[in-house]
């Protein structure tokens, strides 16, 4: 079954707002450097894709690059917030990943409405955390 290995939300200046990695069994992993590296490398491609598309104005940027064992997908909001998801190489359907991004974006927009949370700061909302975990495990 397709598994999400990592989700990240990154600000315009590339500072991390939220990042979580998961093992093959769906257990949360701290400091998964491989995932961090893959996500970081993806950011350049996100910027390329975003700048390049004249016709494509979708926030969903699709598959950024495949590594031998993972697939990396990107999504860029109008407020220049980047979402990056890494999945196990499997038959991951575009539509499913798109839906995941859309829902994560909605959760992020909700978390942003907390007046004590400032744009650009790391996100520490328990409600957000909980909702994202549910999204990831249900994928």
């Amino acid at each position, binding site marked *: 079954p397709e598994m999400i290995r990592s989700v990240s939300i990154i600000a315009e200046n590339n500072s991390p707002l939220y990042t979580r990695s998961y093992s093959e069994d769906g257990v949360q992993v701290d400091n998964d450097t491989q995932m961090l590296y893959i996500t970081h490398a993806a950011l350049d491609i996100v910027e390329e894709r*975003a700048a390049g598309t004249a016709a494509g104005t979708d926030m969903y940027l699709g598959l950024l690059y495949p590594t031998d064992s993972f697939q990396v997908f990107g999504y*860029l*909001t*109008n407020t220049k917030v980047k979402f990056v998801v890494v999945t196990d190489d499997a038959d991951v359907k575009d539509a499913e990943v798109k839906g995941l991004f*859309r829902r994560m974006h909605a959760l992020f*927009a909700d978390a*942003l*409405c907390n*007046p004590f949370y400032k*744009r650009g700061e790391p996100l520490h909302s328990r409600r957000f955390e909980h909702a994202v975990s549910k999204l990831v495990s249900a994928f």
Partner: protein
Amino acid sequence: MPSGRQVAESVFELLLVELVCTARAQHGDDADKAVQSLTTLGNSVGSRLVEKVALDRARFVSTLDIVKFVCKELWNEAFGKQVDNLRTNHRGVFVLIDNKFRYLRHISPLDARSYAVYTAFACGLIAGALGALGLPCQVTAEVTACPATTFTVKLEEAKA
């Protein structure tokens, strides 16, 4: 944005009026400082609100695209209608005219300069939204015939 929990608009309008009173009181009736703090408050709200309003919107292709979005979708969400007139000098200045600006509906007529505190929050909201969308700017408002309000948006770097 459908939501099970909504608040009556009248409550919000009362809150706005109270915000103005409080801002004035906090700054010893210094109108400029009051305007400043209300604008900052509006900034904070605008930059958050825009994320929700722009959620399902395709990515913007131009500056004009963004400003039009603010005039239509954002204005609808924040001010209950669309902007009535949009003009630009194509050098980073936009003029947005709302003939029946919602927040001024129930304000008694004042002299032109006194409206600033009542439009400050909205100016901040608009600037906050535009800023979050990548267009940092200054927004000011002029009320010549209440409730008709003219908002002037000056983009920080002149972007055509």
